[in-house]
């Protein structure tokens, strides 16, 4: 029983921490993020299983986290609000060629992130971007200006 409680607490704690760490524009995981994932996961596992490292205990912990994850996925599918809280919403970085300074500051965007996204969309100049959207997974979708 304590293991399941610890697993549930650990799951929500990690969920909050990872969520408030904010989306990293560019979406791809760097070494910087790998350090976080492994270190946090390793620390949480210590308190989750404690001294009981039996197969039974670890199996129960894994099942508890799996069920919890499924329940949350179900809740997200039922409620747009829960989805927004857990995953965020897309954000417009460039609207009709205009930079949205509030979003850029809030999401700590760098020009390099947008330039990389523009290149991926075969847009050679940032000035040619009509719309740029920061997606929930951190990817930046770029739509060129119609006259570009």
């Amino acid at each position, binding site marked *: 029983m304590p293991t399941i409680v610890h697993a549930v607490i650990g799951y929500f704690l990690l969920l*909050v921490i990872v969520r*408030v760490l*904010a989306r990293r524009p560019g979406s791809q995981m760097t070494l910087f993020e790998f350090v976080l994932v492994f270190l946090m996961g390793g620390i949480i596992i210590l308190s989750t299983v*404690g*001294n009981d490292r039996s197969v039974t205990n670890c199996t129960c912990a894994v099942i508890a986290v799996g069920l919890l994850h499924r329940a949350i996925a179900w809740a997200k*599918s*039922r*409620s*747009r609000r829960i989805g*927004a*809280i857990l995953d*965020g*919403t*897309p*954000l*417009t970085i460039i*609207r*009709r060629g205009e930079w949205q300074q*509030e*979003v850029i500051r*809030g999401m700590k965007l760098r020009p390099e992130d947008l330039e990389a996204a523009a290149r991926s969309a075969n847009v050679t100049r940032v000035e040619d971007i009509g*719309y740029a*959207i920061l997606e929930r997974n951190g990817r930046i979708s770029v*739509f060129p200006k119609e006259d570009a």
Partner: protein
Amino acid sequence: MPEHAFMSPIEDSVPKVGEVAVGEDLNFQRRWWKFERAIWLFFLLILAADVLGLFGRGWLAKAQRTDAAQTVTLDYERIERASTPSIMTFHFEPAAIRNGRIELYVSEDLIKPLGAQRISPEPRESSMGDDGITYTFPATRTPAIAEIQLQPSFPGLHHFRVQVIGGQPIDATVFVVP
């Protein structure tokens, strides 16, 4: 949301930005940024409290008590962490030694909820009774020190009593954090 999302008629319900259907909710995002600032402040406060010892193992957690008869001074942690070892130290004064020995009573609360694991030095004798255990140590002169290793199992507030036979009891409370 419709009962069967993929069976409902196709309609553009996603909020648009210009002519692009984005699904942006800037008001929600503004509230989220405020929440983020608040939660990081909260995390900083947690770390500060941890450094100070509010969650055990720090300056605020350390406590010291001396009985009224000046037979023993007890060093312990008033805030412990569950499943984490700690040491409770007894500094015996000359008045604690009677007939070449020190008799130390510890209540049952110290044994079970606070998880007394090991006592050092090894007592010559242990006897049960009065809801606790009385340890007898051979002793001739001070300074004399005994240590009990604790490892609390359960979070919560735990009261305990220790007493050198011939002295006054020390009643103390330990809060065990999860």
